[in-house]
């Protein structure tokens, strides 16, 4: 009676050893997004690194799931959209949802804190253009020397922010990408261990039942 199981076990262990190099592949639709200025960039992928093309992205208010806008992924599974004004004004926490059909769906939360900090200065307008707006906003008269200092400080802040953001963008991208942990050996062996443990439990219960009936 032992022999068939031994063969099954060997078959099974063999198949596992063949599979292990492949374990980075998984079946899940992941999505991640990061902000650069007032534009949100995002990427989607099945964990086997296949890209869902033309998949629907819905941007929702995380609190009540009201849809703020929808967009679609391009050929590389990437997408981008400009922050909706409402969201910026009301500091909404966002939830990005990707739906690639066939029951594949992924979510990525994007809290207000993550995009608002960098969003306040209009990044795309650049340094030169932003100067006059700052002046009109914060100085009653442009000739006032104390206010010029203030403007310079703000300008400096903005430049630093902009530069930092440029340097941080790839880092954020990497962090976002790594948040998704694909299954590793530990998960697989853990799962198999569970199954064998359950089998042992079942065997023990049946053995007890047999003993009792004798």
């Amino acid at each position, binding site marked *: *009676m032992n022999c068939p199981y031994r063969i099954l*076990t060997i078959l099974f262990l063999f198949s596992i050893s063949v599979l292990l190099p492949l374990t980075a592949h998984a079946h*899940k639709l992941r999505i991640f997004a990061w902000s650069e200025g007032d534009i949100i960039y995002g990427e989607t992928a099945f964990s086997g690194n296949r890209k869902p093309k033309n998949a629907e992205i819905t941007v929702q208010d995380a609190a009540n799931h009201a849809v703020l806008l929808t967009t679609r992924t391009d050929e590389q599974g990437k997408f981008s959209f400009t922050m909706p004004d409402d969201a910026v004004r009301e500091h909404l926490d966002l939830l990005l949802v990707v739906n690639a059909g066939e*029951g*594949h*769906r992924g979510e990525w939360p994007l809290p207000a804190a993550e995009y608002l900090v960098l969003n306040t200065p209009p990044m795309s307008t650049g340094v030169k253009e932003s100067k006059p707006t700052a002046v009109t906003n914060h100085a009653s008269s442009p000739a006032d020397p104390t206010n010029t200092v203030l403007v310079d400080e703000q300008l400096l802040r903005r430049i630093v922010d902009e530069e930092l953001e440029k340097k941080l963008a790839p880092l954020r991208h990497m962090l976002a990408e790594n948040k998704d942990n694909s299954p590793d050996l530990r998960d697989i062996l853990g799962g198999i261990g569970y199954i064998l443990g359950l089998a042992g439990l079942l065997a023990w219960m049946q053995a007890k039942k047999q003993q009792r009936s004798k």
Partner: protein
Amino acid sequence: MHISEGILSAPVLISGGVIAAAGTVIGLKKVDYARIMPTALLSSAFFVASLIHVPLGPGSVHLVLNGLLGIILGWAGFPAILIALFLQAIFFQFGGLVVLGVNTVTMAVPALCCYYLVRPWLKNPKTRPVAAFCAGALAIFLSSLLVALALALSDSGFLTTAKVIIGANVPIMIIEGFITMFTVTFLARVQPEILHLDQP
């Protein structure tokens, strides 16, 4: 072919859960002392199979092995698949706990169909390879249909969804057909007891 959380409507989820629970109870009754280990091993195989991706087709397809599981285990496929899917949901975040019932049904019902439809043909060594191939392919086909049905009952049209899913899974049907064929003929030659061919 795992359906993610947040897609299906509540009635589909609940009926899926009820069917899966009923199947599991029947299945557990059928698992006698001698069948515990084969059930556990095939459950483990199913658990790991979903990590093997086939780089073909437009979508993301992976091995399922529910045909093989079905013809060997029959009703015991229900608990085997339920446990494997539960662990996949926990460890790999495939599917999810809320959709566990539906996912179990879409995998285990085709497995059971294979058991009843194909198993009679396994006894004859001549028809065995073809029958095993059919079991592997048929299980995936039926699973695709059930997934499409579950999605259709919740939202989009059945026919288009079914076409897309079946289309995406054609390569996997063929591959599973061959895997099931080789495994079954190998087992029949080396250790026919595993297949329980003497039993009805």
